[in-house]
């Protein structure tokens, strides 16, 4: 925690956090046709965590289990690599895109490109990287020990 907690930031975080996360997912998937994509989406989600961190809401306490950054990094990398390798099994080249289209009643045509899944891997990895930097560089030694005693 840096300095005293700011009420404005705490309140803003409470409302903004879910919204920003939602936006980041949207940006990630829209990336295929409009500005956006996994990298940008991941950074936006990272920004949500930054607000949370600056507001003084502990990242390592309540969220500790859900927010293990290395899990994000690992999961992201696995998703990306697996998506890249799957086409090989079908005799295509690495990272060859498959395009699936469905007609969903009331919504119309829904299109999913396999590379979106690759992008999702990038998204998770970037979140993990931002979280990891926040946690490792952001935590100062004294604060760490306090947390350690609480848990």
């Amino acid at each position, binding site marked *: 925690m*840096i300095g005293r907690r700011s009420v404005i930031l705490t309140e803003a975080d409470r409302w903004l956090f879910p919204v920003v996360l939602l936006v980041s997912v949207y940006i990630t998937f829209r*990336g*295929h*046709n*409009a*500005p*956006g*994509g*996994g*990298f*940008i989406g991941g*950074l*936006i989600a*990272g*920004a949500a965590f*930054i607000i949370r961190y*600056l507001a003084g809401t502990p990242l390592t306490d309540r969220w500790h289990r859900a927010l293990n*950054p*290395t899990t994000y*990094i690992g999961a*992201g*990398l696995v998703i*990306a*690599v697996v998506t*890249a390798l799957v086409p090989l099994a079908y005799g295509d080249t*690495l*990272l060859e*895109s498959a*395009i699936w289209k469905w007609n969903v009643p009331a919504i119309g045509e829904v*299109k999913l*490109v396999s*590379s*979106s899944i*690759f*992008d999702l*891997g*990038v998204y998770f*990895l*970037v979140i*993990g*990287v*931002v979280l*990891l*930097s*926040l*946690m*490792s*560089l*952001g935590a*100062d*030694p*004294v604060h*760490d*020990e306090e947390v350690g005693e609480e848990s």
Partner: protein
Amino acid sequence: MFVLLFAHFIVATAALTVLKSRPRVSAVLGICVFVATIIATLQWGRTTDGVREVSFNWIGDLGLSLHLRLDSFAVMMVLIISVLGALVLAYSLAYFDPDETTARFTGFFIAFAGVMSGLVMSADLFTMFVFWELTSVLSFLLIGLHSESGHARASALRALLVTGAGGLCLLAGVALFQVELGTTSFQELANMAPTGTVITVAAILVLLGAFTKSAQFPFHFWLPGAMAAPTPVSAYLHSATMVKAGIVLMARMSPIFGDLDVWRWMVVVAGGITMVLGGVRAMYATDAKLLLAHSTVSQLGFLGILAGIGIPGATYAAVVHLAAHAVFKAALFLSVGAVDHAVGSRDIRTLSGVGRQMPLVAILATLSAASMAGIIPLFGFATKEKALAVLLKADDKVGAVGNVALAFVVVGAVLSTAYSVRFVRGVFGTKKDCAPSHVHHAPSFLLVAPVVLLSSASLIAGLFAKQTGHLFDAVATTLSPEATGKLALWPGVNTALIVSVIVVAVGAAIGYVFPLAATARELPVTGDKVYLSLLQGILTGSKKITKYTQNGSLQTYVVVTMGVVIATLMYSLATDQLPHFDNMVIADSPLQFGVVVLCIVLTGVVTFTAHRFVAALLLGGVGFAIAVIFALFGAPDLALTQILVETIVLVVFLLVLRQLPSKFERSIKGSARTAQIVFSVSVGLVVALFALLVGNSRQAPSVGEEYITRSSPQGGGNNVVNVILVDFRGVDTMGEITVLAVAALGVANLVNMARRQRKPKVVEASQ
């Protein structure tokens, strides 16, 4: 064939994962796989003239594929591997307690058997190399099974390094063959009968690989160390199967290269020294298992001579003796294991009266030892007679080298008999000055049954030597068409027999008289010492190089890196033709110009500010200004990314700044500082100049157009930038995110390490 190999790996994987808590179940499954392999191999061997080929396309683009060829020789080897595998695995059921280590043993063991079967079935050198390396790795894991023991780890590492170095030689040889001849297939090599300097070098490299694997001098020293592994592992990998890989390779290659003088001399000298050295060392070993290990080294030298000398008759002798050795040596190891299990000691100086208390094991082991000593009517006698008979005539065929080989083999054979006698005397004999050893419990059925089978096999094969010999006809002729031979229980009185009788008599006398407690003088130079000093030298050398190149000064790193950058840039600026600046545009719009000026001003201020905090904010400002430039060029993706990265980096920067003093310190003054400034400015100037030039020297058309047209139909998206990232250049992205992940983990670890080191000091609260 592939199905059977995969069955090995599936059971092995299961043993290491889902069946981890039930090693006995996986061992039984493993035995089933071995039995299935035996049946299938026998079936194939009978129905298809003993030749069956399969290939498996591995990486088609690189022309890599795995070729397996089941000829008679491979059939024999697979049978040895599977039969001994099943017996040793059954033995291990009684030998180990069913715990987690046993689960690992079982898994590695079955996987090893699969890999080894693949190795002996390999139809070309490349395939063999792949399996070869896998056996090295599995042997490493099995020697180091008791990973809590430092000795086991060191031995495992030694075996891995020596055989790994040999593997590299082999790979170099394989590459040379491939480049020079376009093939590594044994058959095609034999058909081509290639000659030439390159081929000779390649053959020698391959031979060196074989030497390391089969523990030939001067690479023999890793094998005794490998005895740190549990006895079933030693019995299987380090006497019966893996160490035979080099012999297999030599047997396959010597019909092709045996006529090369250098090949023949290397094989005979290395094998001969190995045979004698191993025999001498065995005479000084006091640990029964170590004695067997040295005897294995000695026997491998013998086999190496026979397999590598390139005389058809010797090839036949190599094949039969290989089988004989696998059978008697496995039996000997297993009986030592049984004694060890029952008495708790393998020291031949203190074991006493074991023979009386465990008569069955003693009789069986004596039979096998007699086979090792080459005493009539055992299998080892027939094979040794054959070898002697061939080598006595070798002089006519290959000249002096044949006589050298004969001399080595005779001395080696004397030692063989001597250490066989020493073994039996030491393990099972009753010593006057020792209290009788206490046998805790009688060996269980499974500990004895495999020994019964193996020892009786040595006896039966010896008694029916003639029929046994016929079984190996096809095996040997597969390797070399003229390699025919006969075995006999009683060859008649001839030179070989007379030599043999003298050898056995002298050997037995030495073995009987030689004191059991004899310890060898420490030799000034041993393979082990050379290995250790080499290893030490490499370690200290690399430490020195690291200290020199990675001296820990950030400034040095930056100067070196940037220095190289501007040196190369200046070189290309000086040598390349300079482009024209005719159609250079200063700025597209006044706004663009303004933003660039802002960038320059902000950067300028950064260099003069004294506060780190201010500098960080100003750099952030530069970043945002660049984002505006991206946006002005119509690149929303880039602009968006730049803004986000800049924001996050700024926050992280500020987090780091808390740990640093708020003002920059000027540690460097005077001329050093001037030099620093000159260097920095010139880096900036050169890079800027280069960017300018590069921007104006495009000749090839831009790939942009093509990407735009391909984006929607092939990538399924309208955002070209994104399609490039995740599809067209997706591999780049994959590399980049990997780098990102590694860098982030590295930073986190560095920070955590620094924090841990600082922790004892941190008491003062920052609030």
